[in-house]
């Protein structure tokens, strides 16, 4: 595992590269991870690290990275926007292609990261596979989820006293600009489905009403193009108050690893 910064100027991103564990025959294969947003990422970090380890063990070059304004990357969370994060994914793809010599990459995305991965994949010819883990299908539904999570957070913290007033827009304490909110509201993964030409794995650990419609749109009537795995694991991005992050979603990791092999 090698952590490093990549990118130019003020948009330096923290990446963590896992080399393939053994020299697989044939062309090198590579996978870029597209992380979820904010609180989801903090909680899911361990599961994503484990998945990267598994894929590298299967012979892939793997790059995880932090978007601009997230994790250890440059920038402030207040400056983050989805247009920039899509550019970051493209930059990570080029970085990993350069490091690995792979002509194509696979994208593995979780939650909002899955939606961004699909948007990028729709624009590129060098993305061969797309693994979407609990993708955000409807940005508006996601905003409602964030509102509810935020209200729950505030409710818990005001059980015995008020919170100081703030005019800093945030969801669950993560900066949330008007730009970001508008961009998330515009996410419509089902509408994007016809533009996706890759083989796709849809992994569902916490079902949403939109996932069935997404599966129908993604399959597009073509047999073998879409695999759907509904897994009984705890969602790795869902905070477990006892274990903080909960158990590793071992079944989901196994199925993704097998599909990527």
């Amino acid at each position, binding site marked *: 595992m090698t952590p490093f910064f990549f990118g130019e100027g003020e948009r330096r991103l923290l990446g963590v590269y896992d080399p393939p564990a053994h020299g697989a025959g044939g062309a090198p294969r590579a996978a870029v991870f597209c992380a979820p947003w904010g609180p989801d990422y903090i909680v899911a970090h361990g599961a994503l690290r484990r998945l990267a380890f598994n894929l590298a063990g299967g012979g892939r070059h793997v790059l995880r990275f932090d978007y601009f304004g997230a994790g250890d990357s440059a920038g402030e*969370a207040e400056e983050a926007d989805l247009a920039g994060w899509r550019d970051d994914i493209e930059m990570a793809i080029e970085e990993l292609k350069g490091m690995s010599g792979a002509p194509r990459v696979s994208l593995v995305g979780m939650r909002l990261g899955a939606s961004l991965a699909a948007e990028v994949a729709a624009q590129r010819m060098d993305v061969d596979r797309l693994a979407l883990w609990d993708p955000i299908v409807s940005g508006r539904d996601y905003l409602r989820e964030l509102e509810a999570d935020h209200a729950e957070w505030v409710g818990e913290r005001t059980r*015995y006293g008020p919170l100081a007033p*703030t005019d800093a827009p945030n969801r669950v304490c993560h900066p949330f600009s008007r730009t970001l909110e508008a961009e998330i509201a515009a996410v419509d993964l089902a509408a994007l489905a016809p533009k996706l030409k890759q083989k796709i794995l849809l992994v569902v650990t916490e079902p949403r009403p939109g996932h069935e419609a997404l599966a129908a749109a993604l399959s597009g009537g073509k047999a073998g193009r879409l695999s759907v795995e509904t897994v009984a694991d705890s969602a790795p991005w869902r905070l477990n108050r006892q274990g*903080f992050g909960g158990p590793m979603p071992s079944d989901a990791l196994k199925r993704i690893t097998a599909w990527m092999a």
Partner: protein
Amino acid sequence: MDGLAAPVSERAVTFGGHGGLVGVVVQPAQPDPGAPCVVALNGGILPRSGQGRIYVTLSRRLAALGFRVLRFDLSGIGDSPSRGDGLPPVEAAVADLNEALDWFAGADGRVVLMGLCDGATLAAHGAATDRRVVGAMLIDPLIPRTRGYRIRHLWRRLWQPRTWLELATGRHPAWRMLHARAQALVADDDLPPAFDPNDPAVRAALKDIYQGLVDNEVETFALFTGGMQHRHCYREQLLEAFPEVTFGDRLRLEYFAANDHHLEWPPHRDWLLEAVTGWLTSAPFRAPSPAAVSA
């Protein structure tokens, strides 16, 4: 970065005996030769950037003021894999911290350790035992409950109409706790007893740590939040928990009443950033010692 004029640079690093500890070094453009370096430890199992990236923002601010900062993941957390040497978790964390200090501060460096929750207790342990550590910023470290705690805690709860409402409607956490205990009895589970900082052995170990801070002449900023009311609930609890320890004027003690263990709510976060930078830039950290490193 962070809207600050002074530029800083950030470098991803790996270090440690097994080469598996992953971190980020934040280097000031104009280092202050008199300033100790700062090492930030994971809060619980949160990755090194911290909740809401608090360690990222803080380390950039500190670097802009001339401090070198390392934030890193203990083994098994964030990006650092497990050590693979079979050490139990607490001993592994102590070994990781020693390796971080050796790598980042060298044999005669001066270090301020910073941690939250479990990270605070680890920071206190390191500060109590390693002569290189001249300062410790501890957010919600582990301390025993006191008589004063129990009186205040119960009194505050009894005065809250919400407590009575939730008790009457079955939504109070006490009901959930009773339910869980009843279930454990029925299931006849052989579960280990819940961790208790008032257990005599735990209390004795904690007392040694806090006495060590005094003996090691460590400038200490101990901050307790209202977000850990099951553990502490007033400013002087640390002093009353260990009356045999004479903390003296090297201790700055704060109780932040808001229910926000991570200080992640924006105004709380701003307060924390100001408080930490103010303390770090004004505390009279002791000078380097000729016998810098303990055995």
